[in-house]
């Protein structure tokens, strides 16, 4: 077997194994189910209310999904990278031939699977709680899939860069929670902001929210958006630009992180951990 095919296979295997290990551990189960359970409980509470003829629960759902995706893509990725660096997972990968590419492939597999599952845990039960969700139709779900996928590609490289530059996992949380909070706050994903700050249109979160709303809400709801339109082309362009920029920039940061990983760095992490 050629090293290049084996590295892809090793990465995929490793990702698959680690996803299940995590998913089946107590901590992993809590992490996976906690947020969806809370969101679903909220949907349940508001399932009969309607606003201007649209189910209130349906109106809430795009915000939840955007939040889930942002959380997974940004903080999840940053946190996992910082953890792997601190506990020596990364260093071990570095000590293996082709270990680093296999590690990164595995990481991508785990991140995508986790994001996919956590979104499905909201969407699938959501279909039963919010009956009007079932009327979205095929084209709506196609839109949902591409917006989620492209949105994830726009966010995950940012998370990777944050994870690569911070010193510790707590730093990763600190550095990702602030941009996350700001983007979510100004992007009108939970309540229609008639006058959104213009700056929100720069960030991917606004467009992810808009894209998901365009997929799930009835056509007439577009009237509440800026310009009274779903602007699908702009959504694709902005998210695509973020994804392209991120995918161009992130490898450099990851290489730098990999180059710097050493026993002494890990030892420093261990000392930080045991002292705190």
């Amino acid at each position: 077997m050629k090293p290049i095919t084996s590295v892809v296979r090793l990465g995929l295997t490793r990702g698959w194994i680690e996803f299940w290990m995590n998913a089946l551990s107590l901590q992993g189960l809590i992490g996976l189910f906690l947020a969806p359970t809370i969101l679903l409980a909220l949907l349940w509470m508001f399932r009969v209310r309607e606003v201007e003829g649209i189910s209130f629960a349906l109106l809430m759902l795009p915000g939840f999904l955007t939040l889930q995706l942002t959380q997974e893509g940004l903080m999840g990725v940053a946190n996992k990278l910082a953890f792997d660096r601190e506990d020596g997972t990364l260093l071990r990968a570095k000590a293996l031939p082709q270990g680093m590419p296999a590690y990164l492939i595995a990481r991508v597999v785990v991140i995508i699977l986790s994001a996919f599952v956590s979104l499905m845990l909201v969407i699938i039960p959501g279909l039963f709680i919010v009956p009007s969700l079932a009327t979205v139709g095929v084209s709506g779900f196609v839109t949902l899939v591409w917006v989620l996928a492209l949105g994830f590609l726009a966010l995950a490289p940012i998370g990777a860069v944050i994870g690569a530059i911070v010193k510790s996992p707590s730093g990763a949380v600190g550095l990702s929670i602030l941009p996350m909070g700001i983007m979510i706050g100004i992007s009108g994903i939970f309540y229609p902001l008639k006058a959104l700050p213009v700056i929100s249109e720069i960030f991917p979160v606004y467009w992810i929210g808009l894209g998901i709303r365009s997929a799930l809400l009835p056509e007439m709801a577009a009237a509440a958006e800026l310009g009274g339109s779903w602007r699908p082309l702009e959504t694709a362009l902005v998210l695509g630009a973020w994804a392209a920029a991120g995918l161009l920039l992130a490898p450099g940061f990851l290489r730098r992180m990999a180059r710097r990983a050493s026993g002494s760095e890990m030892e420093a992490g261990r000392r930080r951990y045991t002292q705190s």
Partner: protein
Amino acid sequence: MSKTDTAIQVTGLQMRYGAHVVLDGVDFAVHRGEVLVLLGPNGAGKTTIIEILEGFRGRSGGSVSVLGSDPEHADEAWRARVGIVLQSWRDHSAWRVRKLLDHFGKYFGPYSTDERARPVGTDTLLQLVGLTDHAHKKVGELSGGMRRRLDVAIGLVGNPEVLFLDEPTVGFDPKARREFHDVIHRLADLQGTTILLSTHDLDEAEKLSDRILILAGGKIVANGSADQLRKEFSDQTEVIWTQDDQRHVHAGSDATTFARNLLAQHPEGITNLEIRNASLEDTYMTIVQTHETTPSQKEGKQA
């Protein structure tokens, strides 16, 4: 690739961080199949040397060759020939021991050669480090000693030609230390693996090494087997005796003459006469104290 007997060659190795000099012209070579112990106090630069040799750290100057390549620019095929024993603490804690060794072994499969089959079978490894009965356990459930033995197994999974171990027994209790030493002894007999191990424990250096390098103040200050070091750096001998219920000690290089005179002067009344060569510990303390010239080297990067 050269077929020479030299596995590691280090010439004029320099490492400094700004004005702080960590390594100041280090030279040494390690033969194939040799067990070389890098001994020195904390902060002497042992970890720095090992990380440079592992290819995990750049250097400020000098040349380094491990298995014929410069570790800083070596490729993945080189990586497959080198084993590194890292000190785990939380990583891969959800993996089961056998599964982890199986998985890591697969990375080496493409680099297997007729001379050196890769990877080493998981069962062989488990037996070598004495983890056969714990193969089904999760890594996170292992005791500290077992975990470190797993670290050794992971370092060996690719059947390496050179194995690096940086302070492998820090924090071990005596039993774990003993078991670890047994593993290393078994290893050295296996396939002529070259081993470079660092420690600040003198006893350990004496037990494991074919040869000891003592590192102090960023330089190699002594190089030889435990016996050679003892002879070369200390001709001190102690003469100990009891006279009138009192214990006397005389230290010097003239033990035989001194004892002869002593007995001649006091034909009676001398009991428990004992002549003792300086211990390696005395030698080590002498060497290190002589060379501890840089007070700036405190606790820090090299601990």
